[in-house]
């Protein structure tokens, strides 16, 4: 297990922690971008080039910008006086810790039977395109419909209410 893996994982986990803990939402969004980038590099390390670059395009490129826009449109960059954590933060933290404990226990129990290495899969983007157009064509079409519906829905939901008030 190499040093590079520890470094990338530290970036991903540290970015996620900072995104959750930072009080200023703009800083949290930047930390979130670091976490997404770390995860994308982990994908690349797992020889999933297509998924890694899709992750960079979709998350670092689009979702992070969307989050920053939402923060600025809702004046979320001002730190509220009453604190950023809810009244029931202790219960939430306990639930998250319990979930991590269960997952880690399961992984540690299963670790001896998990594979430690495998040969690099010979998968090209060509194969992914062929699979998307043959075996996975129905999910692809459903995703296309879903994305169109989400595009229209997001615009309608976030549209001004003035027109509706007149009716």
């Amino acid at each position: 297990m190499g040093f590079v893996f520890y470094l990338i994982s530290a970036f991903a986990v540290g970015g996620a922690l900072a995104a959750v803990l930072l009080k200023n939402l703009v800083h949290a969004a930047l930390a979130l971008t670091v976490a997404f980038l770390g995860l994308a590099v982990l994908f690349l390390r797992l020889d999933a080039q297509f998924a890694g670059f899709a992750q960079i395009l979709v998350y670092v490129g689009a979702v992070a910008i969307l989050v920053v826009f939402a923060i600025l449109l809702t004046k979320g960059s001002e730190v509220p006086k009453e604190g950023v954590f809810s009244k029931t933060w202790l219960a939430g933290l306990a639930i998250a810790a319990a979930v991590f404990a269960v997952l880690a226990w399961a992984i540690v129990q299963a670790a001896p039977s998990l594979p430690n290495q495998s040969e690099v899969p010979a998968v090209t983007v060509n194969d992914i395109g062929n699979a998307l157009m043959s075996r996975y064509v129905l999910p692809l079409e459903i995703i296309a419909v879903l994305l169109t519906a989400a595009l229209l829905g997001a615009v309608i939901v976030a549209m001004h209410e003035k027109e509706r008030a007149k009716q």
Partner: protein
Amino acid sequence: MTTTPLAAYLIVAALIFAVGLAGALTRRNAIMVLIGIELMLNAANLNLIAFWRYGPHPELLNGMMFAIFSIAVAAAEAAVGLGLVISIYRHAKTSDLEQMNRMKG
């Protein structure tokens, strides 16, 4: 090439999932809850990719396709979720979840 055991990737994914869950459960701001959900989805993607890479038949592309479709669904979810937050903010002048305690008006 040095090899990393599958369990290491799973532990990293579990850590990011737990951090995202903690964020979604403890933050007041609706945008931060969405950020937590995005982190959880990303952790699940890391699991899918790791199992695809170490699985017996990576050439079938099952886990990879799952991850790619999951990225697309998460993008749609983020767009609609943030649109909802902006809409609620315009209506209630707050994005604090503890003040959003009414379904009507």
